[in-house]
């Protein structure tokens, strides 16, 4: 049999899937042991026990100063920023994506501008952002929105433009006005793509969140990572990174489930 035609069975598949993760843990343990043998106070690759300690300390022991569980406080702070930002980006992307996609005048007006905006590196504009918006949540949320919305707008507008012209004609022969067609034909077919789009932007959104929290905050997952980075406290950084990754994976998965649950037809279509 050619390699391209040989397929692993279910058990084999599971084993293969787990292998790289197991290897990673083994490699880490070995690296850690080697470094700690050299220098017992090495902080770069803490022993698994130190990681557990740190998790325990951050997540399950109340902070002496505030009595709160730091990791939990950081998580809620970051997630609320992220969700606000994604919510706002979604609203913006929907509004602009739909109008740019549907109306040739709006497209002529905004498409080149949005294409240009989407190429501006948002990190470079951070100082202005903070000065214009102050240091509160607004600036952090705006950074994420600026980083994420242009790509979403372009993606949605493309999706709208790609709707078969036949559908629009059909809707017109059914007596639909621009508004009615937007509301009943274009919008509902755009929404599932919006969720997919959101899913694709989760990575960049986390990135900008961390960048924003690095500069100004008093809680948040990114804040903590940058705070303890001064001490090279990898025992805190690793669990935080793993936690962020897990949150991202869960959000990714949840968004896809959500799409299928709300828009069952969008999955039928695929096949």
């Amino acid at each position: 049999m050619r390699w391209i035609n040989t397929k692993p069975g279910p058990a084999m598949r599971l084993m293969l899937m787990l292998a790289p993760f197991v290897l990673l843990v083994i490699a880490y343990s070995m690296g850690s042991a080697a470094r700690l043998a050299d220098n017992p106070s090495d902080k770069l690759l803490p022993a698994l026990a130190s990681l557990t300690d740190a998790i325990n300390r951050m997540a399950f022991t109340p902070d002496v100063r505030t009595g709160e569980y730091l990791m939990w406080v950081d998580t809620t702070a970051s997630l609320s920023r992220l969700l606000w930002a994604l919510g706002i980006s979604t609203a913006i992307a929907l509004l602009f994506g739909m109008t740019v996609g549907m109306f040739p005048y709006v497209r002529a007006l905004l498409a080149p501008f949005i294409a240009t905006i989407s190429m501006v590196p948002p990190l470079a504009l951070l100082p202005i952002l903070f000065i214009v918006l102050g240091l509160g949540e607004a600036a952090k949320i705006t950074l994420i929105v600026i980083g994420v919305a242009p790509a979403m707008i372009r993606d949605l507008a493309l999706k709208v433009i790609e709707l078969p012209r036949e559908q629009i004609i059909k809707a017109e022969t059914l007596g639909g006005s621009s508004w009615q067609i937007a509301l009943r034909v274009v919008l509902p077919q755009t929404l599932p793509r919006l969720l997919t789009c959101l899913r694709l932007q989760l990575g960049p959104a986390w990135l900008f969140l961390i960048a924003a929290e690095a500069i100004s905050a008093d809680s948040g997952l990114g804040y903590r990572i940058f705070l303890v980075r001064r001490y090279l406290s990898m025992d805190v950084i690793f669990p935080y990174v793993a936690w962020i990754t897990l949150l991202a994976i869960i959000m990714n998965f949840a968004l896809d489930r959500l799409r299928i649950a709300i828009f069952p037809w969008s999955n039928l279509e695929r096949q």
Partner: protein
Amino acid sequence: MSTIVLDNVWKEYGDQIVLEKVSLTIASRAFVALVGPSGCGKTTFLKMLLGEEAPTRGTITLDGIPLMAEPGPDRGVVFQRYSVFPHLTVLGNVLLGKAFTGSKIAARLFGASKRSAVEEARQLIADVGLAGSEDKYPAQLSGGMQQRLALAQALIMKPKVLLLDEPFGALDPGIRAEIHVLMKRLWHETELTVVMVTHDMREAFTLGTRVIAFERPRDRPEERERYGALLSRDIDIWPPRIAGEPSIFAPDRDDPVMPLGLAQDDLAPTQGDNP
């Protein structure tokens, strides 16, 4: 009444001439079948009747009034694909036109108007043979069922003119035969002038009251810019079919001569033939 008159219509895309000097009068309640080789401009012709494209020269009138420059509810349409909305159920697809005309802002019906519209839609769905599938999405229907749905969806608007662009081109022969019967019934029962593009000669002669062919007499590349397709043949079916009246003979031309014993359009087993 819904007579369509085309007077010396030309259509050009940039340098390329697609259709040349088409003059034609389509009588009310006619069923015009439009044939011609691929790329000769059949779809373009239909788009002009729709108002989706404007003629480069010449005029098109419907009952003496120049056509609206946009598709509107007086002209229904069914395409080969993408005629139904994938995000709406069968019922939702048929209701959509009612919702558009009945509710300017929300484009949704409520209360009594909704109930009466649903009733009308259900009747139409049953008419096209989709009773029982009201809550399915198009992706859950076969190709033939989707085209029936597209018909029902167009017919609920009671259009004067129904435009069909190879509506059954992608269907199985067996399914096509069934939908021909439906199409004929709808044409007889509804006040409709129909223009249908097809690739299938038999379909054209089975359904049409008149068969029109477009053709591009000069089709070498260097000629394409100077000459378009012409209306090359125009055949009235004999004996004439008249909407609403039974055919004088050959009541069903859907079963043509067959070289061998199998039903040509349909492999449904003969009764008692099961193993």
